[in-house]
Each structure stands twice: as C-alpha cells, then as structure tokens.
C-alpha cells in the first residue's frame, strides 16, 4: 500500500478501533487499530477468516455499526476524499453512504425486500439519492 501517493487515496482509514459492549461493564475490541488506504480506480481485498474483523471494518466505513452496542475509538479516522466521515452529522453521512460509497452484501436473498419488485427497489435508491442532484455533470450515462 505504500507505493501510492497518499494525497491520491480515495479512502484512508487510520488507526481504526471498534469495540462492542458485551454487558454493562465489559466490552470487546474486535478491530484493534488498523490503518489502510484505498487508491482510486483499484480493487483492494480485505481477507480473513470469520471473526477477523473484516466485516466490522467495512461496516464502520459505511456507518452501519449498531450505535447502542458498538463504539469507535476517538482517535480513529476514516477520511473519504478529504472529508472525515466520523465527524460528519448523521444526515450528511446518510447522503454520502449509498450515493458515493455503496455496498453489496453476501446474501441477496435476505438483503432484497421480497414484497417489492426489483424495479421498485432500484428506483427507490434513485429517488432517495438522485433527487438532490438529478444530472451530475460528467456522469457516464
């Protein structure tokens, strides 16, 4: 990861620590201070066995960790195109995630809503995110 110019990284994760509360007093740290970068136009693979913290790290980037049981350490940083994601308001974060950062999950059977047609579900994404910016200049369409 070191050969890339750090100014060009699309996403930069610095010293990410995530812990989960197991009961009132104790918590377990599942991600123990990881740092990595994702350069533009590239594929980065995060490999590990179950329990390695790879999914938790990606949920932290998406802002999808359960707020009442998990916490991200104060000195952790997630920088996306110069913006510090962990310092954004919840509303700003929601606009960004889904539009500029999006996610595909493992089980299509459980992540699609069975009572809506696929067309409706795709259009829903467009309605939610594209209403603000219907014609992005330079869009590849």
């Amino acid at each position: 990861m070191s050969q890339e110019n750090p100014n060009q990284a699309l996403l930069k994760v610095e010293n990410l620590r995530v812990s989960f509360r197991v009961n009132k007093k104790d918590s377990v740290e599942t991600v123990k201070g990881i740092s990595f970068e994702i350069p533009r136009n590239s594929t980065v693979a995060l490999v590990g066995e179950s329990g390695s913290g790879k999914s938790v790290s990606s949920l932290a980037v998406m802002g999808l960790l359960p707020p009442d049981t998990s916490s991200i350490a104060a000195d952790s940083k997630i920088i996306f195109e110069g913006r510090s994601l962990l310092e954004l308001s919840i509303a700003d974060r929601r606009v960004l995630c889904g539009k500029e950062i999006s996610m595909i999950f493992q089980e299509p059977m459980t992540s699609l809503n069975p009572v809506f047609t696929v067309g409706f579900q795709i259009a829903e994404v467009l309605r939610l995110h594209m209403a603000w910016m219907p014609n992005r200049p330079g869009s590849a369409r």
Partner: protein
Amino acid sequence: MDAKQARKRAIELLEEVGIPDPKNKIDAYPSQMSGGQQQRVMIAMAIACEPKLLIADEPTTALDVTIQKQIIDLIDALRIKHKMSVLFITHDLALVGEIADHVIVMRNGEIREAGTVEQIFESPKDTYTQALLHCRPTLDTRPWRLPVIADFMNNNGALVDQKQRPRGLKGDEEIVLEVKDLGKSFYSREGFFGKKEFKAVEGVSFKLARGKTLGVVGESGSGKTTVGLTLMRLHQATTGQALFEGKDILSMSNKEFHHYKRRIQIIFQNPYASLNPRFTVGQILMEPMYIHNIGANDSERSAMAYQLLEKVGLPTIAFHRYPHEFSGGQRQRIAIARCLTMKPEVLVCDESVSALDVSVQAQVLNLLQDLQEEFGLSYIFISHDLAVVKYIADQVMVMNKGKVVELANSDDLYLNPTQAYTKTLLNAIPKGLQH
C-alpha cells in the same frame, strides 16, 4: 428525477448488470429470480448512484462456482467503466488473486500483512498469510494431510514435506453400493387435472467402492443433492434401484429399510440447522443409539459418545454443552460424530464443508480422511467446490440438469475432461494469481 425517469434508469441498470430481458424483469419479485440474478440486482442498486467506492462483503460466497466467476467479472468490468474503487471482503484467498490489486490480510482485528497481490501470493512474509495460502486444497497436489493454520503457526512457517496421497480406482475394488438408472421427478399442478413433470434427476448410475470416495459436482439445480436425499430415502425415488449388498434399498418396506438406515448416513451442509438446539451434545449423540439399539445401557452409550467426541477432536466437556456454544467447525464435527455413532458404511456428505472457513475446512477434510482409513468408510461427497472434490475424491461424477455428464477417476477427469460442460466448470475455478 421523476418516477418515469427512475424506471427508465432502472431498466438501463438491469441491462448493464446483465439481466436478460430487463424490460420485463423490472417487474419481477426477487423470489422469481435465481441467486445469481438477485446478486446482479443488488449490484445494480449499489451502482445506481455511480458511487466512487463500492464495498462488496463476500458477494459470491453463496453462489456456484460458474456464477461466482460471472459476478466477479461483472464487478471488475463495472469498476473499470465507472472508474470506481472496490473494497472486496472475502475469506477466500484464491478468489482475491482474480480481482484484487492490493491485499490486506486480517486476523483477530489486526492487519497481519498488506501488499500488492503479487507480493502476497508470490512472497508472503507473514506466517498466517502463508498458512491461509496452503490450507486450501489446490488442483496440482494432494498432500497426505492438508496443513492447518496451527501447523504453520507452531512450526514458524516451515512446511513439513508430505508424501502425496494416491486417489482413484483400479477397477478391482469391492462395491458397496450400486445405483442403477436412478430418477426423481417432482410434479407441479397445471390446470384442473394436468400435472407438469420436472425431472430433477434422470438416469443416474454409479458404483461406490468400499473405503473410497465418489465426488459429485455440479451447479445448484443440477440434481446432486436430490441424488443424496433419494439414496437416504428422504425423497421417494421415481425410477431406478440402489443395490446395497445386492438388495434394493429403494423398493424395500420402511421396516426392512430400518436395518439399513444405520449403515447409510448423511451429513448436511448447515451445522447450524441440523443439530437440535434443545439437546445437549450428549443427547444428540445418544439418540440415534437408542433408536438403533446400539449399546446395552446408558453408561455404555455415554462411554461410546465420549470416545467419539475424542475421535472427532472435541473436548469431553462438550458432552454436557448445547450446540450454540460451539463454532461452525465444531458443530460440523458434532454432526460427524452423530453419524459415526451408528457405525455407517456409506456416508453422504452434502456440501458438508462448504460453509466453513478454509482452515476449519482443512481440519474437517483431514478428519474425514482419517476416519475413512480407520473404518473403511465410503463417501458420496457432494460439493460445488471443485478443488475440494479433487482433493478428497477417488472418482468424480459431474452432473448437469439432472443427468450425469461425466464420471471418471478424479485425476483423469481434471487432467483430461472429455465433455464441454466439464471444461467450463473447471475453467471457472479461481486459480489464485492471474495477472
């Protein structure tokens, strides 16, 4: 963007992710699509707003090997077209070699190693990375035992040289089970009186030799699971015979079959669903012994259960615990121990290692081989993972659309496939590094 534009854009997106006939499919419900198509719809939703970063969390783990390759190729093509970056999360290192530029290896919440894909595959520095690369069975070697992560971590990465395990049939082996012209049809109602026949399995014949393994491979819907279930009489066969010691187990009465049931057992794919959550492990192991009158009394039965726990590498305290207290690999071993209580001769393994992590998968495969050597078990090993089947099976049967495409000794089949379908399947296996 109004509703009309959104719909138009949705059709474009479906077309872009390769859904056939998008104008009609847009009004389909998810249940009317195959798993691969559903994943394509998920991808369409993910790229709908042209994101700069796409996070893919195990997007292909639930899919067949040929569909898996299509989805990977699609993600890569879309990445290039839309100038995105992709964060690809997976447990499968072989898959990574096909798609990634950079690899980050994680364990227990820490990064063990990070580098370009060439660095990681050609000169991994971390022992854990080396271990991950070696525990997955490969197509070109067949070591006596698969190395597990612990071997590497304890020996500091030194790989013990192992002799190769010969596989394949010579032709003079004793045959335990002979299946002739097996067929299974399912019927759906059509109109008032009509019914529509769907042939899930048709004209399947094979011989299973004692102490050997028959691998059954094919995509989902190929009928491979139906073959296993029909042999267990969990489905009633429509046609054909299965001769066990010369007697047809498919046509005998339930009472007569009861004596044979003990000798043919099945291990299912999902150890989370196949163990009764309200039984302790001890009860799980002893229940089949009661039913089949194995052991004279409870103390004898529990002694046998303890022995089996040891055999499958579980601690004896497991006896009083419940299934949810164990990991996936441990549960699969409980399921194997339960089968062994009946001292079966034929064991059907239906995707038994597919849901497990690579290192646990290696442990379970080693266990199955040890048990085969010790008890002379015969396995019918059903899997969509061709590398695993190549490793474990003496003979391989390739199925497609309910029919046998090819049946041969595993080395012959992998080196010289004669059928076009087999070649397609083999080409879809992730080869590790392809740059």
